[in-house]
């Protein structure tokens, strides 16, 4: 994976609860897509969620910033419960950054404008300051020189790093990643993972749906395995990979690791 040794000094998990999900259920029409989800995420935790296609991973993390609505149970993010109250939803969304599989950059805006839009309009940051912040994060993801280009002019890996920078510009306390590397070529996967590792090293709370098991082993402090809308198994990475308990997990791991 990454060449440099991972610096774990700041990767501290605090007692403070970042996300609390209890007895949460969700249906799409009559289809019971998430079943009795219970989960607590502490501040500073790096959680990797994996599982077969259609198991509800995306749905779960999209519930955390209310891109999807749950019908039963409770989701509390940073002390704010997600209900139909729009104020709460806006509050949570401005605290939680999200990175999508297909980047979802705004193609009609330059990279810099992509990064400054939300801070200016949601956080009411002055334009100048927002641009400085944006350049700071673009340097961090190592593409400051692309600031005035349009998303269509960038490679996939570069676009995904812009998407990460765009989220970071809102100074989120939690980051959600939904398969951030699965639309990318191998050499681009690495540059995006490196960015994510750096983020983890700074102590960001991260929930990451990914099949990059190397990343999980290196960075995560917990791996959650989902199947058929349920959390089947969770454990710290070493245990999870070397000593899976459930048959389903074993089957999944053997498929994905190819042995």
């Amino acid at each position, binding site marked *: 994976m990454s060449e440099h040794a991972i610096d774990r000094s700041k990767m501290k998990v605090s007692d403070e609860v970042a996300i609390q999900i209890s007895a949460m259920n969700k249906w799409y029409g009559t289809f019971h897509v998430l079943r009795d989800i219970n989960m607590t995420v502490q501040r500073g935790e790096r959680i990797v969620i994996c599982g077969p296609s259609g198991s509800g991973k995306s749905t779960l993390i999209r519930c955390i910033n209310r891109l999807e609505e749950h019908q039963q149970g409770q989701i509390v993010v940073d002390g704010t419960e997600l209900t139909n109250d729009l104020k709460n939803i*806006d509050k949570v969304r401005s605290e939680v950054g999200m990175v999508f599989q297909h980047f979802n950059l*705004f*193609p009609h805006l330059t990279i810099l404008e992509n990064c400054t839009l*939300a801070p200016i*309009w949601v956080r009411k940051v002055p334009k100048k300051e927002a641009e400085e912040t944006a350049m700071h994060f673009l340097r961090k993801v190592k593409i400051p020189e692309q600031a005035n280009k349009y998303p*269509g002019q960038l490679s996939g890996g570069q676009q995904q790093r812009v998407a990460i920078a765009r989220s970071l510009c*809102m100074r989120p306390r939690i980051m959600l990643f939904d398969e951030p590397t699965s639309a990318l070529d191998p050499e681009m996967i690495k540059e995006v993972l490196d960015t994510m590792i750096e983020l983890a090293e700074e102590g960001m709370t991260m929930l990451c749906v990914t099949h990059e098991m190397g990343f999980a082993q290196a960075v995560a402090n917990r791996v959650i395995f989902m199947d058929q809308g349920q959390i089947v198994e969770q454990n710290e990475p070493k245990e999870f990979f070397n000593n899976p308990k459930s048959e389903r997990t074993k089957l999944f791991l053997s498929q994905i690791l190819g042995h």
Partner: protein
Amino acid sequence: MANASYVRDQMLPPQAPPVSEAGVVKWLRENLFSGWFNTILTLVGVVVIYWLVVSALPWWLNSVWNAESLSQCREIVAATAGEGATGACWAMIRERWHQFIFGFYPPELWWRPVMAFGLLFAAMAPVLFAGQKKNLTLILGAVGLFLLVTLGLAGAPMGGWIASLVLVGGLIALVQVMPGRLLWFTAIYPALCFWLLWGGSVWTPIVAMLGFVVMGGAYLALVGRLGPTASALIGVFLAVFWWLFLDIPITTALASMIGGGLDQVDSDQFGGFLLAITIGVTAITFSLPIGILLALGRQSDMLIVKTLCVGFIEFIRGVPLITLLFTASLLLQYFLPPGTNFDIILRVIILVTLFAAAYLAEVIRGGLAALPRGQYEAADALGLDYWRAQRLIILPQALKISIPAIVSTFIGLFKDTTLVAFVGLMDPLKGVTQIVRADIDWKGIYWEPYIFVGAIFFVICFGMSRYSMYLERKLKTDHR
């Protein structure tokens, strides 16, 4: 045995391509004679063009510009080109051009529509070429020049002439310092324009504009407590109330205290392109925002809003514009307080606007549907609320996709203004032409008025089309 190793010891200089591969011959072969079918098409095309030119050319070449009547035209043609020759009689245009342009607008007041027309470009410029200092200066300069010449020709009073030139000069200066502020002029232009065209007390446009101030004020006062949608609705409601019930009494009261204004011109004196452009420009301006709101409403989760929008769109699209124009007075009378006598042009403008808005709503809906879901999700995930997401992310992209179709709708709308002939207004095509041909001098003239009117329509519509292509090129950022 061949030697596998090879080294070029002499570089070849570039040579001109063979004749068949370059210039005219190559172009002809590839584009006109690439196969037997293409060759036949080319030959047929040449014959058709030849035939058209041969039959129409004498008519154009024998054009007569100076004559008193059609019969005199014919005599002149017969005298110069021989018996039986045909010739265009543009003398009619020379004598009657003003009816095609102004209808029966009083000649001593022509300067007012001329001024309104010139300033129209000054008002559109900051919207069409936002932030482009050089283009804005160029356009405003052209407007100044236009007004300098035409207002002089139209015999405008000194005061109006100087005022408009000072205004344009001021706008040019403003562009150099703060181009964004030019939009203020755009905002007050509608009131100024309607005052120039219809005349009346100075208070009429000011009080009418105050309706918008009421709308904005109500919105700003309430938005903190009620949220954007509810306060916008209340604002619109209050403004409509203002226009319907308070506007006229207040204007009358103010006018009786402090007089001053322009001579009134009645709607039935409007005609020709003055009428077409008044209806067209107003309808275009107002149909776009209404169309956007309808398109968003149609996508809304709120059942009532959605049903109303769908019902409105489908009703308007399902009924011919002429039917709407005919029933204009009846329909609007239902919704208005009894006793209001609604101006016929205003009535027509409202209906044409709504008609175009329904079409635009569908066009824009197409643009909205073309956007990937991810754009909505990314906007949501960043914490943008509905209206900001629409304004900053969704609409810019959806409208960009829809530019060609939107401009098509606008062009259609502009040409549809000729349908007002059916409700007795004097449109340039049918209304004015009919009047001209009713004159004993020009009885029997046929091609010339239609060609003249058609040419002006073409110039305007072609202009719109070119602008849309320019805009598409300018906004192209996807680099696909």
